[in-house]
């Protein structure tokens, strides 16, 4: 799938990515793949009785991976997810279904490619936002050259390569 800059409009809403309900097996599998042994992610007794949490927590690193997956799926292999920022504002716990959302907030035309600004987040079944953030994705022009790889950021603040 190729997505071009001209096909995108400010206000566009991305098809959400829905994952879950997350069970302890999901969280143990992620903790193991990460070699992250923090017990709040797989030891319910420790999380609830020792750390006074509402349940075992869905890892922040798992949520950030899913954000990247969500954005890459939208950008396709001809686009490039350049910048992503997010904050962990609230906990998500075992049993929750997470819905990743994003909306196009701006577009900028540059000589080599176009940049698309997005706002994004992750909400649970109660529509509580846990991970608000923003992203910038580079897309090729329909009749333009491919987005350079490795990615070459535009000149200006924040571009220090």
């Amino acid at each position: 799938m190729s997505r071009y800059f001209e096909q995108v409009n400010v206000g566009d809403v991305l098809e959400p990515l829905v994952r879950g309900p997350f069970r302890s097996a999901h969280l143990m599998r992620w903790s193991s793949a990460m070699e992250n042994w923090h017990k709040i992610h797989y030891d319910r007794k420790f999380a609830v009785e020792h750390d006074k949490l509402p349940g075992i927590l869905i890892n922040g690193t798992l949520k950030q991976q899913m954000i990247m997956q969500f954005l890459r799926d939208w950008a396709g292999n001809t686009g490039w997810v350049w910048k992503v920022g997010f904050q962990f504002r609230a906990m998500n716990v075992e049993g929750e279904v997470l819905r990743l959302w994003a909306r196009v907030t701006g577009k900028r035309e540059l000589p080599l490619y176009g940049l698309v600004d997005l706002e994004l987040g992750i909400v649970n079944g109660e529509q509580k936002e846990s991970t608000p953030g923003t992203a910038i994705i580079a897309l090729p022009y329909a009749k333009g050259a491919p987005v350079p790889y490795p990615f070459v950021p535009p000149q200006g603040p924040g571009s220090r390569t």
Partner: protein
Amino acid sequence: MSLLTAEVQALIGAESSVEAACDEVERGAVRRYVQAYMDNDPIFYSDEVTNPLPWREPVAPPLFPMNMFRRPFGTPDPFSEHDRNPDFDGIVGSTAQGLPPLPLPKTIGLLNAGTEVEVFRYAKHGERVTAKSSYHSITEKQSSKGPMLLVVIETEYRGGEGGLLLRVQKTLIRR
């Protein structure tokens, strides 16, 4: 009381040494990783799919290098010192990423406030990865609970030939 003492300010700009991940980008580790976050994109395993793409061969997910810095062979088991501690929470390693710890009172806690990532290219299977961190900025703000520090640690991840893969800024709240 200010947390931004002269000793803390002196660490702004301090850099870690260049650390090499103990293993190269392993195909099996990539498989376990993408299966664990439920991503079936064939760019992580298929030569047929990746050959016509700019990266030409299977790659790791963009944030994978952040998780490659693990305990090498032959190093002490970090769990062993907690054998008799039922309160051990399982956390091993440091959040300082090779940087000198901030000289703060022991009562000062730590919260992860957010992450900003810039991605430049994917790491390839078999590629060696290095990381270098610095205290990018340390600023003080007043909160309802008193002073707090916003500590931004920047880490650059580079591939086998030294090219930049990722630049990550993590903001930590210390209060």
